[in-house]
């Protein structure tokens, strides 16, 4: 594949010129004639009865066009995967983000003023905020009709015989690890505009990452609202960040529809930053008990994990993250015996959703921290233990994942070399090194019945190409990667490719920008369509040139014969010849690619992805014993990506994921007190800034995945998966303390250092 012209190159991002000039239209920037502005009143308490709700004064405010409450939601409509979430809550509130009333007004200012005029009387009820407390017998129920705070979800994976393996293990370690609530921090806040036409067909201007699934959600909602059979069109604006936050539909979108129905005007919602913090759905906190063992040679014998996840008051995709956690639990390194049980628990906290990595970072933090403990107990270098158990091509994992390409060992070698692992490990001088690995889906993920994506390609008379794809651009660069793939196959300059990816009326179906699947799935879909159209064009060109199609090639928009370089025909001529003739045609092709991966069976086994992405992160830290501050001196992120379609964009995913991971490891946490977010702003929520960027190397390891487009695998999520345990392990190497609950703040490090000093003194005294 050495003669590639576009794939594998540093091609600049297609939408970058628009974005650097301020010309891209985000939902914030969009105005529609006659549009009204919406606002939401949220509950004052995390758990309360609503005794009185009076909207009269708000309704009377000039400029207010509608005020709605739970009474205005038809047919007791509820949304979410458990259908436990009404868009407006009546009678009882279960979290401080509960929507209890909404207004539409002629300006955002009037909408905000109207919310102030709504009178609510509450009777506060005792809430339950700790998932462990919520699991206890007799705990107050968040949803009485559910009879229990523990969600009825079947998260249990058994492979082999853990109990037998425990007995046969030479070394066993057990511990408990905790992770915190963190949020996406998209720079563009959430928002939408709902507009109904005269026949009540809905156009939703949206930020969604899942246009086809959101379309389905809204169709269901319209049916519940008495508008069965109406059409829904989703037009995506430029999306100001996703990271999983837009993988579900939210109350404000249904409220916008209801207000649009009531006012017969388009209604716009834009979240304030404060709302973005407390009223969107973050990554949930977790409590994980883990045991792992190995034999006397350091071969892993078993892994047992038990997890409790805070679901919050309602149910979104957060409750399904254990399905993805199973992947590292069963298949990160070779472990023959696995037992995993997870419980998701209702509380009166915010409710959890998908966030980059989808449970994988929580699980990997426990696995990789515990693995270092096991290495110490077995008297092995942590690298040595990992290397001996590393995944390899051709492996069938206990969860029945068929590993195709796998560059874990190569990634490990890069980390060891670039970090000077052997020179720096175990010096105990306040500096230390740590590593951690990852596995993630790299070839789609069959979490729904379909994991497909469609592409339509059409060509005009001048050789310009329109690519209509279901794939969503959330900044990650799918638009550019797809353009590269099509340009490569068709032999046309990349500037001749126009990607249309934001309108369900014209774009084919796609399951969404999730599971690091766009390059692989949408890429394969685009590849298939491009090959079809190439074949059509070469057949016509061959006729015109008196050549066999197999002897023809296309470069830079010109068809030429490989046998006789003199024989060539510009594509534009081929296109016009076939168009402007009796019985003429235009070149168009479509291709729907649904990867040959498997849904899990009832035991949660099956080949979830066509290929798996691997990576190893290594970090050198310096810990200040006086302050507990952790400084990252060197960060190596080595990733098996199959093939880098665009190395520059790919590195951007690694850098971006890596720093998000550093934030997760060292600083970010949503602080809740009795269900109320105390630090819902950028002053108090410590998202990393440019000053937090350590010296970092993104290392691309190419393994040429046969099923991937030009050999590529997914890379959207992996960058943050192993970051936190790599750092925790480095801190342990530096100063001998292990922090088991994220984030690793200076306070926790200092406390651990003090406890260690006391314990050491005690020991030497005794």
């Amino acid at each position: 594949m050495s003669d590639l012209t576009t794939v594998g190159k540093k091609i600049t991002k297609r939408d970058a010129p628009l974005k650097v000039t301020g010309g891209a239209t985000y939902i914030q920037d969009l105005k529609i004639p006659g549009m009204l502005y919406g606002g939401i009143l949220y509950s004052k308490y995390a758990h309360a009865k609503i005794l009185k709700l009076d909207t009269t004064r708000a309704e009377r405010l000039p400029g207010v066009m509608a005020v709605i409450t739970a009474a205005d939601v038809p047919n007791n409509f509820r949304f979410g995967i458990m259908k436990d979430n009404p868009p407006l809550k009546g009678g009882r509130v279960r979290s401080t983000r509960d929507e209890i009333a909404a207004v539409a007004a002629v300006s955002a200012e009037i909408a905000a003023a109207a919310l102030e005029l709504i009178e609510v009387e509450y009777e506060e009820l005792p809430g339950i905020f700790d998932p462990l407390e919520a699991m206890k017998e007799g705990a107050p129920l968040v949803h009485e009709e559910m009879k229990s705070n523990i969600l009825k979800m079947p998260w249990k994976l058994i492979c082999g015989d853990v109990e037998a393996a425990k007995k046969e293990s030479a070394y066993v370690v057990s511990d408990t690890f905790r992770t915190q609530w963190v949020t996406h921090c998209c720079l563009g806040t959430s928002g939408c505009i709902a507009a109904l036409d005269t026949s009540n067909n809905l156009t939703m201007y949206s930020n969604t990452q899942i246009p086809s699934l959101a379309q389905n959600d809204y169709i269901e909602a319209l049916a519940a609202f008495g508008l069965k059979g109406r059409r829904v069109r989703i037009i995506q604006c430029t999306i100001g960040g996703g990271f999983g936050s837009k993988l579900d539909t939210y109350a404000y979108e249904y409220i916008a529809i209801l207000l649009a129905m009531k006012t017969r005007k388009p209604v716009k919602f834009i979240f304030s930053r404060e709302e973005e913090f407390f009223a969107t759905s973050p990554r949930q906190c977790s409590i994980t008990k883990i045991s792992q063992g190995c034999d006397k040679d350091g071969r892993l014998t078993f892994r047992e994990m038990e997890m409790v996840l805070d679901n919050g008051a309602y149910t979104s995709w957060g409750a399904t993250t254990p399905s993805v956690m199973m992947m590292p639990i069963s298949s990160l390194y070779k472990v023959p015996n696995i037992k995993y049980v997870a419980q998701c628990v209702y509380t009166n906290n915010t409710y959890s959703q998908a966030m980059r990595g989808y449970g994988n970072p929580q699980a990997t933090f426990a696995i990789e921290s515990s693995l270092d403990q096991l290495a110490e107990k077995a008297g092995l270098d942590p690298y040595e233990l990992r290397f001996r158990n590393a995944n390899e091509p051709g492996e069938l994992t206990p969860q029945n994942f068929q590993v195709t390409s796998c560059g874990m060992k190569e990634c490990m070698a890069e980390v060891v070399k670039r970090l000077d692992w052997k020179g720096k490990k175990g010096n105990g001088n306040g500096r230390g090194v740590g590593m951690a690995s990852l596995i993630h889906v790299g070839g789609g993920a069959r979490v729904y019945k379909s994991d497909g994506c469609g592409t339509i390609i059409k060509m005009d008379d001048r050789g310009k190409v329109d690519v209509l794809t279901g794939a969503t651009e959330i900044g990650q660069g799918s638009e550019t990667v797809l353009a590269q793939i099509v340009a490569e196959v068709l032999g046309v300059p990349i500037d001749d490719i126009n990607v249309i990816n934001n309108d369900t009326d014209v774009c084919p179906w796609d399951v969404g920008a999730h599971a690091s699947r766009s390059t692989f799935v949408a890429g394969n879909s685009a590849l298939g369509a491009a090959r079809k159209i190439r074949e059509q064009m070469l057949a016509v060109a061959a006729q015109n040139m008196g050549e066999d199609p197999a002897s023809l090639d296309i470069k830079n928009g010109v068809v030429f014969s490989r046998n006789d370089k003199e024989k060539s025909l510009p594509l534009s001529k081929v296109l016009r010849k076939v168009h402007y003739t009796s019985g003429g045609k235009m070149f168009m092709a479509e291709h729907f690619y649904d990867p040959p991966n498997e849904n899990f069976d009832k035991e949660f086994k099956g080949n979830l992805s066509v290929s798996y992405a691997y990576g190893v992160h290594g970090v050198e830290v310096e810990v200040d014993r006086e302050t507990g501050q952790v400084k990252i001196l060197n960060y190596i992120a080595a990733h098996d990506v199959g093939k880098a379609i665009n190395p520059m964009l790919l590195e951007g995913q690694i850098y971006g994921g890596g720093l998000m991971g550093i934030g997760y490891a060292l600083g970010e946490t949503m602080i809740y007190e009795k269900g109320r977010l105390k630090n819902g702003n950028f002053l108090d929520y410590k998202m990393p800034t440019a000053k937090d960027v350590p010296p970092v190397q993104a290392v691309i390891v190419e393994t040429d995945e046969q099923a991937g487009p030009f050999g590529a695998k997914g890379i959207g999520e992996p960058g943050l998966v192993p970051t936190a345990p790599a750092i925790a392990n480095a801190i342990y190497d530096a100063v001998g303390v292990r922090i088991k609950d994220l984030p690793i703040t200076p306070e926790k490090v200092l406390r651990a250092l003090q406890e260690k000093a006391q314990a050491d003194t005690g020991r030497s005294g005794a």
Partner: protein
Amino acid sequence: MKREITFKLNNEERKVEVDPGWTLLYVLREVLELMGTKEGCGYGECGACTVIIDGLSVNSCLYPILEAEGRAVTTIEGLRAASGELHPLQQAFVNEGAVQCGFCTAGMIMSAKALIDENEKPTEDDIKDNIAGNLCRCTGYVQIIDAIKTVAGGGRT
């Protein structure tokens, strides 16, 4: 009570009727419909709304519009050359992969421009200090810093 103010916006004299309570950001976006300057938080912590006023980078979401009287304001829309050519910083952001979702980009470029206009050869630490008030969740800042470096001490600003 509206008041008329006069200021220079992207090298053009503008007279605008304003409410004294408005911010510069509000006037840019809602009155003048220059949508390139973004609001990411509304309280001066994310930098998405950064513009340049008399050579200094400023969070326009906190800047009272009356303060703009007689001043020179540059927004992202004012950076391109009359020929349509991108400003070297804009071009560098494109070339180096410094743009992902793009919501922070305008503010980031304006902060960088203010830095380079004042300090022709900033160090990497200068650059990091300068954009520490501009949050980006997508890029991890690495390629943004690279982009600014390629212009710093090099191209035209």
